[in-house]
């Protein structure tokens, strides 16, 4: 028995048998075909109907370009139904959401992991406890809080601040960053301390430069989650001129011609798909996107 470290379920011996080989190739091929048809198929269909005239899509939904290609749809969607406005709204919210999540996770994680105040354990417990409160409980009280902020009485409804600031309260981010900081080599931190490094310099010149992997993970998930979010921006941004794509598209669907609508849908998922392809390693490494969202 060879000690093949990289072996999977099937052994090299089994894979060598002719009948087994054919069966295995067939099964893997079928799974690949299934994934292409089911996962990629709808996106390809969307891309096709985004540049196909409405009548063709309605009459021959499964044909490839029965009467030609109409690139004009993309421009109509971007300009005439004002998709560009909602696109940039989404970009602003995603950027704000990224910034606040980074700030909170990095400073909080640093304080809890490196500075370790005496009340740190209690505080960390309070942060982790919020993971066990389902998001549904927060929807209405969060809305009323944002409507009339404690102490200041600011009304953040219909502001981007109201849309992205609550995203910073992510216990998952804090846990991820804290655990990463916990595993940084303590000798480096101690050496910096001996050299007279204060809390701020230690943070900026020692800890942050060593933390690029975890910052990358927090960043990609923050941006994607903001782009996908629906219910919170729906509640907090009643003003159509401020709404992101997710919230605006369903309203547009009722009053827009089909081909232009398909172009709008394609534009709306182009950025997340490009983002995914560029950072696929971070997404596919697994174990980080553990929470199944409803």
């Amino acid at each position, binding site marked *: 028995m060879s000690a093949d470290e990289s072996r999977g*379920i099937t052994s090299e011996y089994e894979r060598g048998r002719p009948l087994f080989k054919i069966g295995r190739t067939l099964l893997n091929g079928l799974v690949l075909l299934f994934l292409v048809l089911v996962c990629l198929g709808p996106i390809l269909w969307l891309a096709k109907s985004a540049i196909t005239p409405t009548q063709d899509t309605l009459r021959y939904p499964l044909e490839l370009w029965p009467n030609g290609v109409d690139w004009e749809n993309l421009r109509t969607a971007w300009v005439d139904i004002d998709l560009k406005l909602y696109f940039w709204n989404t970009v602003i919210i995603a950027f704000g959401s990224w910034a606040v999540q980074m700030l909170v996770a990095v400073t909080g994680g640093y304080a809890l992991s490196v500075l370790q105040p005496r009340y740190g354990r209690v505080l960390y417990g309070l942060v982790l406890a919020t993971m066990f409160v389902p998001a549904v*409980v927060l929807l209405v009280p969060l809305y009323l809080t944002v409507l009339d902020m404690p102490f200041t009485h600011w009304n953040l409804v219909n502001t981007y601040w109201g849309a992205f600031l609550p995203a910073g309260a992510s216990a998952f981010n804090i846990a991820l960053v804290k655990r990463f900081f916990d595993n940084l080599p303590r000798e480096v931190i101690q050496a910096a301390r001996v050299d007279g490094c204060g809390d701020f310099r230690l943070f900026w010149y020692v800890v942050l430069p060593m933390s690029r992997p975890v910052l990358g993970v927090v960043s990609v998930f923050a941006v994607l989650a903001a782009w996908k979010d629906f219910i919170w921006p729906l509640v907090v941004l009643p003003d159509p001129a401020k709404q992101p794509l997710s919230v605006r598209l369903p309203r547009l669907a009722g009053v827009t011609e089909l081909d232009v609508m398909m172009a709008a849908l394609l534009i709306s998922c182009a950025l997340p798909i490009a983002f995914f392809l560029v950072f696929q390693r971070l997404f596919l490494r697994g174990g980080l996107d553990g929470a199944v969202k409803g």
Partner: protein
Amino acid sequence: MSSLLTRARGSASTLVFLLPMLLVFGLFSWWPIVRSVIMSVQQTNLVTDPEFVGLDNFRAVLEDPLLATAVQNTLWFALLALVFGYPVPLILAVIMSDVRRAKGLYSLLAYLPVVIPPAVAVLLWRFFYDAEPTGVFNSILGKVGLGPVPWLEDPAWAMPSLVIEATWAAAGGTVIIYLAALVSVPPEQYDAAEVDGAGVLGKVWHVTLPHLRGIMLITLILQIIGTAQVFLEPYLFTDGGPNNSTLTVLLLVYRYAFQNTTGGDYGKATALSLMLAVALALLSLVYFRLTRRWSE
């Protein structure tokens, strides 16, 4: 004296670093959690001062004839999501873990639907679900002599249609979790199973699946918690219809608070969401008690 001073300065800078977390969690997490408990026993209408009403909100929710419908529909959604959605990622992951060539391509394809914004996916699928014989899915079914199916227009078909789309949107995430867990199966266990004469299915049954047991128990409860809070699909596909057949608990919460013609009934909305949260907490507690024996 000087050590006292540095300690004071040290704790001051600690506070500076903690400030963003304290502010954001305080304002947008801790305070709203406390407030949901307070609001559930208050009458809040944003015009007059909130008024203590005891358990009236809970009583009003429990007396709402739509509650039973919403609870039943949510359970039905969760059950269907388990039947359709639980085995699919598991089977895919087990097969994919043994792929030798272009393994990355398989994961890439499987995860692709997860990055599509859910609102975009639902609007696209709403078109696929066109009930006419010329609709996309009905055309495909028509080619093999089936259908046409009244996908979203028939109360019996509406919920399964929603679940199929939701499964499509979420399965890839679970596949990746299983794949990550399968990397750590000790190769000797497969070798040992082979010595005992196990075939491929035997190895899957006696080695692969037991290795995944712990993570499978977690994905199961997470999926139930997630599906119990389903909102986007019923809201965008059918808005609870036809004939309230897809009205879920969270949709009812949303209607109490934001679609009330007489002004938002925030008390009733928080009372219902609290009841759902407590039910989910109890469920998880019982679940982990019952499964502790099997989890490792």
